[in-house]
């Protein structure tokens, strides 16, 4: 038998013919194409019933209404609620990626007790019974030892039942050390208290403004309620108004403005006073308001006339004399002008001098409580709890001096920056336990090395964080809260919104893990501690407390998702300034422009570093979601390294080119960065986004870039005591 090559080839040909006549090739082709169109590792949302859960976003103080699209019990998308008064269907990058917070890997799934060293990340999962018992034991021990004042609490939120419950707990327990995290809201409140002479929140009628003069406010970089400001900005762009942006850097807001006035950093108040000079000189101010409802105008006039001529202001600010004059004229000529401040997103409270100078401009053109102007809003008043009754321990503890010095000699409501400095220095009495809810001081505070030093001296730190953020990582006990899509909460007073409104945050899904509402934790702790504390918290749980507190408004909230005082209009001048006139000579402005000194000398540190805010980088207690990090440009963040923006002229003098690695040194710290040559930044000034470089949190995000917070030294405002640092002196050298 001779089976040769020909036979073999023949076998193959026969095989090929047979295969072609069988379904094999055709079926395989089809299967491979189906397989390649449906990669098994690509997640596909399950099919099911589509529903929408309307709730309120709490990821920032903006208070947007959101609609969570669900398939059965799984949230699949977050959209803005159409028709909502704050955001009318719009949503920001952080809000739209909130599901990555809900379902992300950084969630804390159960109460955790630290077993290793602090910050080591070694935890033991414990039951809620144990966690609450251990907390209650510690609180009982401190109280019985007569040290109730040694317990401190920091809340990220200012208004609503949650901060109120925490504050009530602290009062009934006997500690004066309840603090909230301050922002530009506090600076505005203090400005109103000093100049308007009343306690009020600032609201901005941006929908009706036709000329916006912004002193570094990031109108489309997250200032106020971000989505609302985007809408307002679009309306202005569409011809309804003009935007003037005074800022050292060409931010997104500056780039979209009608006039960008590059100004030397930290001299905004001087520019405001220079404009006031022109307005007064040319008698362009609203004389009916100024003569009838203000006091101290003559002194103010003398001050600005003497010291703030456009020539002098041009020297201070670097803004040209003619620009100052023309800006002042167009501002005063506009029918509904508005001057705003609060740098970037307004998270750092800022200089009172600047806020007052800007508010004085609004007073000169008479837009306080007028359409398109700045409105004084009453603080939310729906929380009408009686008491609490205090026992002897609580009275004694409550009489102790607050460690942050707020409230007594100082007008600010809370000064956590000063609190941490005091605790770090070991002054006055020690803090034995600290509760932190909705805040991330280990990351968020400027010069946060101080916070770490203070925390090291506090033996018992309890975090209520839902996510493993920097502060939770350094805590001793974590009592994880539900995330906002799993819980009830009232969300009053969106930042900068001009009408009283309460949004309802309510569960879109049932809690995904073994977490507990912090409201419930507080109520249960109070009831365990007993006595007057238990009496002060008579509710069965937080939901009952919320319903009782909201009373008649509850039904509206459940139905509409928000309750707004539609007919609200700000008090007319006669009512508002009838008995207490607007004061042009309040303490912060009486002496003219007072620059906030920043740390560092200009010989060792020839540059100025300014942190800036961006919609693509979350800088608050909630960090960037993976989605947001993907939107960050490659000249901001590349391969985990952050860029500093630097003017090509400055870069040239330092021998730095685009993308070079450099060492950034400030009096507070050092960082490895890369350089991004940017003509939109003043020579001598360098800038970096706030909010990057968080240490723990989420494997996919962290170690991304550099946080500016440890680099910037804290500066207290001389009047309010609030954080006022707008930057720090810096040195950049080629690495």
């Amino acid at each position: 038998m001779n089976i040769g090559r020909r036979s073999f080839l023949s076998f193959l040909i026969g095989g090929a013919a047979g295969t072609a006549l069988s379904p094999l090739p055709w079926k395989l082709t089809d299967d491979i194409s189906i397989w390649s169109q449906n990669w098994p590792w690509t997640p596909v949302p399950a099919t099911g019933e589509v529903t929408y859960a309307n709730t309120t976003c709490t990821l920032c103080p903006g208070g947007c209404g959101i609609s969570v699209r669900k398939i059965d019990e799984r949230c699949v998308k977050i959209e803005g609620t159409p028709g909502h008064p704050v955001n009318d269907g719009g949503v920001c990058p952080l809000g739209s990626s909130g599901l990555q917070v809900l379902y992300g890997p950084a969630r804390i799934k159960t109460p955790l007790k630290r077993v290793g060293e602090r910050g080591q990340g070694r935890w033991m999962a414990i039951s809620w019974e144990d966690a609450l018992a251990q907390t209650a034991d510690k609180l009982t021990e401190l109280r019985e030892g007569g040290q109730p004042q040694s317990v401190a609490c920091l809340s990220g939120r200012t208004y609503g039942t949650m901060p109120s419950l925490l504050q009530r707990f602290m009062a009934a327990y006997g500690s004066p050390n309840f603090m909230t995290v301050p922002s530009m809201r506090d600076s505005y409140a203090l400005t109103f208290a000093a100049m308007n002479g009343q306690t009020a929140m600032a609201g901005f009628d941006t929908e009706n403004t036709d000329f916006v003069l912004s002193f570094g406010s990031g109108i489309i970089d997250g200032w106020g309620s971000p989505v609302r400001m985007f809408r307002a900005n679009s309306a202005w762009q569409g011809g309804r108004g003009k935007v003037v942006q005074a800022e050292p850097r060409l931010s997104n807001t500056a780039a979209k403005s009608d006039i960008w006035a590059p100004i030397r950093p930290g001299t905004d108040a001087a520019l405001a006073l220079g404009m006031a000079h022109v307005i007064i000189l040319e008698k362009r101010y609203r004389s009916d308001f100024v003569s009838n409802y203000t006091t101290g105008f003559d002194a103010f006039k003398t001050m600005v006339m003497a010291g703030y001529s456009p020539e002098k202001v041009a020297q201070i600010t670097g803004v040209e004399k003619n620009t100052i004059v023309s800006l002042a004229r167009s501002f005063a000529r506009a029918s509904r002008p508005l001057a705003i401040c609060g740098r970037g997103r307004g998270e750092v409270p800022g200089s009172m001098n600047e806020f007052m100078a800007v508010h004085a401009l609004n007073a000169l053109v008479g837009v306080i409580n007028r359409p398109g102007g700045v409105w004084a809003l009453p603080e939310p008043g729906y929380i009408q709890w009686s008491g609490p009754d205090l026992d002897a321990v609580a009275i004694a503890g409550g009489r102790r001096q607050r460690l942050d010095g707020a409230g007594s000699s100082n007008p600010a409501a809370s000064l956590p920056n000063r609190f941490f400095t005091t605790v770090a220095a070991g002054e006055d009495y020690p803090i034995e336990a600290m509760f932190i809810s909705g805040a991330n001081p280990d990351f968020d505070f400027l010069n946060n090395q101080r916070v770490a030093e203070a925390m090291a001296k506090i033996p018992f730190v309890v975090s209520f964080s839902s996510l493993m953020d920097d502060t939770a990582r350094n805590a001793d006990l974590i009592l994880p809260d539900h995330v906002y899509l799993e819980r009830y909460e009232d969300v009053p007073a969106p930042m900068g919104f001009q009408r009283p409104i309460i949004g309802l945050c309510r569960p879109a899904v049932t809690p995904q893990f073994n977490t507990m509402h912090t409201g419930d934790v507080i109520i249960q702790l109070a009831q365990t501690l007993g006595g007057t504390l238990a009496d002060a918290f008579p509710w069965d749980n937080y939901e009952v407390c919320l319903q009782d507190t909201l009373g008649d408004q509850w039904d509206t909230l459940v139905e509409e998702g928000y309750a707004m005082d539609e007919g609200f209009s700000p008090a007319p001048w006669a009512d508002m300034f009838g008995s207490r006139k607007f004061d042009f000579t309040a303490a912060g402005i009486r002496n003219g422009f007072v620059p906030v000194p920043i740390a560092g000398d200009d010989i060792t540190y020839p540059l100025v570093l300014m942190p800036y805010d961006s919609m693509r980088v979350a800088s608050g207690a909630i960090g960037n979601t993976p989605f947001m990090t993907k939107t960050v440009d490659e000249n901001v963040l590349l391969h985990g390294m952050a860029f500093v923006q630097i003017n090509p002229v400055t870069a040239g003098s330092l021998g730095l080119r685009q993308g070079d690695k450099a060492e950034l040194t400030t009096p507070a710290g050092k960082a490895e960065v890369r350089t991004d040559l940017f003509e939109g930044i003043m020579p001598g000034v360098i800038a970096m986004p706030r909010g990057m470089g968080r240490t723990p949190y989420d494997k996919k995000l962290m170690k991304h870039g550099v946080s500016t917070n440890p680099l910037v030294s804290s500066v207290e405002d001389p009047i309010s005591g609030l954080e006022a640092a707008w930057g720090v002196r810096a040195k950049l050298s080629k690495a």
Partner: protein
Amino acid sequence: MSTTEEHANEVPAEIADKKETTPETKKESAIGYVILFFFVGLIASLIVGWIIFPRLLYSQKSQPFDFNHAVHLDLVDEGCQSCHYFREDGSFSGVPKLAQCIDCHEEVNGEDPNEEIFVTEYVWKEREVPWLIYSKQPDCVFFSHVAHVSEDSLYDGKDCVTCHGYHGESETLRPYQYNRITNISRDIWGHNIAGFARNSWDRAKMDDCAKCHAEARDAASRRNLKAPTTRFITNIIDVAFPGTRPAGKGSSVQTERGACFECHK
């Protein structure tokens, strides 16, 4: 050049030698082998392609427990839609969720061990039953049930049987066969490996969709063209000025034209 030329000269010489030395008989048997091996290859590959390949391609799983459609169909008033209903927004609910079954099956009602498994393992433990769905299309397929079954649709309200066969009258659940490559149910390609279908519910590939859509389109265009003269005139227009005549009512409800996939498969 020279080496190539040498080779070119050598090769024909070798072949010529071989031809001279090979006897005729040997040559014939070689051709016989060639033919034999062709058929061996042909038959082997046909066996592989038609018999072995389908066995290798598909695997099977059994359902979590058995279910008797016939019994349930007798008990309900609105046929299939009693359990496989349309939601208010028109989306199709598909396989019932636990919540629908709980009304009757909160406790074990009968003797059937399958019901006992259902109640004890799923109802009491509040776990959804992980049914294996014979008719589940790949994720890349978009299909709207409501467009196909509603009375006012172009398809004159197909009943469930048209695509799903007599599944609703089955007394037991057959094993779920699935493709090892795609993980898709065998019912989509159809049980015949060659893709032949005797009934409209034997397969649910794109071709099967297209077939029905093309029929619907033809029926619709027939309805539009009344008299033979009209048809004649329109035909002339179509040939002389292609594309100028507005399209007739096609098989797509949205566009009133033929569905894209009739051509793009």
